[in-house]
C-alpha cells in the first residue's frame, strides 16, 4: 500500500486536540441528496475544518489479494464529510453529512443505528430525492426532523403543504434554514434535540 511516512501525516492542529478528559462521543446524521447543502451545514457549525472519511465498495473480487487482480475489481469510493462540536470536557458531538442512497449507509458500521437522530436536508427543487430517505428512516426507527435549505430559486411551499407532500405526522418538525449560516444550522440541530427530548418526556413512566 502506498502510504505516506508517519512524519508527514498532517494531524489535527494543536487547537483541534480533544482534551484527555473526553470520555465518549455522540453523533447526528445529516442526510440528503447531492448538492442539498450537507457539507455546507456541517462546515457552518463545526469547530474543526470539515474532514472526509471514505469507504470503498468493492463490486467483485472480495477477498482477492490486493496485489493481484486489482484491475478486475470495480470499486466505488463513497465519501462522507463530517465535523465536530465539543459539548463538555467529557462529551463530543460529531455530525456526518451522508449521501441519500441507502446502499451506502451500511458501509459505515452503525451510522444510523447509533445516531441520536437525523436531519433530512432537502431542496424543494428536488423534493422527491428525499422520499426514499424518509421512508428508510421511518422503517429503521431513526428519529428525524426535516430542514428545508432555502435556495433562492427554489419553490416555496407552506409548511402544511410540504408536510402533506412528505406525508409526515404533525409532531415531526419541518423548518427552513440557510445551511451557510451558523445560527441557522445550529437552530436545525436544536430543533432535532428538542424533538428527541419531547420523545424522552413521552417515555416518562406515569
Amino acid at each position, binding site marked *: 500500500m502506498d502510504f505516506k511516512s*508517519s512524519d508527514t501525516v498532517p494531524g489535527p492542529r494543536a487547537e483541534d486536540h480533544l482534551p484527555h478528559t473526553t470520555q465518549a462521543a455522540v453523533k447526528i446524521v445529516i442526510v440528503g441528496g447531492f448538492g442539498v447543502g450537507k457539507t455546507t451545514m456541517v462546515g457552518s457549525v463545526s469547530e474543526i475544518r470539515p474532514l472526509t472519511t471514505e*469507504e470503498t465498495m468493492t463490486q467483485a473480487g472480495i477477498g482477492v489479494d490486493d496485489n493481484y487482480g486489482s484491475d478486475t475489481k470495480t470499486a466505488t469510493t463513497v465519501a462522507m464529510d463530517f465535523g465536530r462540536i465539543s*459539548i463538555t470536557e467529557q462529551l*463530543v458531538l460529531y455530525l456526518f453529512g451522508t449521501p441519500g442512497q441507502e446502499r451506502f449507509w451500511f458501509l459505515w458500521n452503525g451510522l444510523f443505528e447509533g445516531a441520536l437522530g437525523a436531519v433530512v436536508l432537502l431542496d424543494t427543487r428536488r423534493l422527491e430525492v428525499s422520499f426514499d430517505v424518509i421512508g428508510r428512516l421511518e422503517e429503521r426507527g431513526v428519529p428525524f426532523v426535516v430542514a428545508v435549505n432555502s435556495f433562492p430559486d427554489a419553490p416555496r411551499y407552506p409548511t402544511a403543504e410540504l408536510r402533506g*407532500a412528505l*406525508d409526515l405526522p404533525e409532531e415531526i418538525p419541518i423548518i427552513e434554514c440557510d445551511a451557510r449560516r451558523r445560527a441557522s444550522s445550529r437552530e436545525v440541530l436544536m430543533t432535532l434535540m428538542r424533538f428527541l427530548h419531547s420523545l424522552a418526556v413521552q417515555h416518562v413512566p406515569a
Partner: protein
Amino acid sequence: MTPPQRRRRQSREQPPPEPVAAGGPKEGEQKNPERLYILTGAAAGGERAPIDLVTLIVTSADPPPTATPEQSALLRLCRAPLSVAEISAYLSLPFGVVTVLLTDLLTAELVQARAPIVRQAVPDRSLLEAVMHGLQKL
C-alpha cells in the same frame, strides 16, 4: 405549484432486508470489516462492541520497533483522543482499513477505545440536555 407527493411503501411493517456484501456472505468468513469486533474496555464482563465511526481512540504505548508506518502514524495521531472517522480522514485511509489497523493495535494493547454513546429506545434526557446546552454555547 403543487409539490410531488410521497407514497408510503406497502411493506412498511417488514424489517428492511439485511445488506448483503458483494459475493454473498460466506459462513465462517470474517474478512468483512463490519464484522470485526473490539474490546470497548467500558462494559462489564468484557463485552465486545464494534468499532464505530465515533469510537474515540487514545494511544497507550509508544510504537514498538515492529510497528508498520500506518500503525506508527496512527499511534502518533492518537496521543490525544481522536475518533475513528478523524483517523480515517487524517491518514487518508478508508474506514474499513482503519478498523483492521485498530483491531491489531487494540489486541496489542497499544491503544484504548472509548465506546460512543448510542441512541437508546428510551432517550436519555440528561444527555440530550447536555448536548442542547453545548449547542447553545456555539
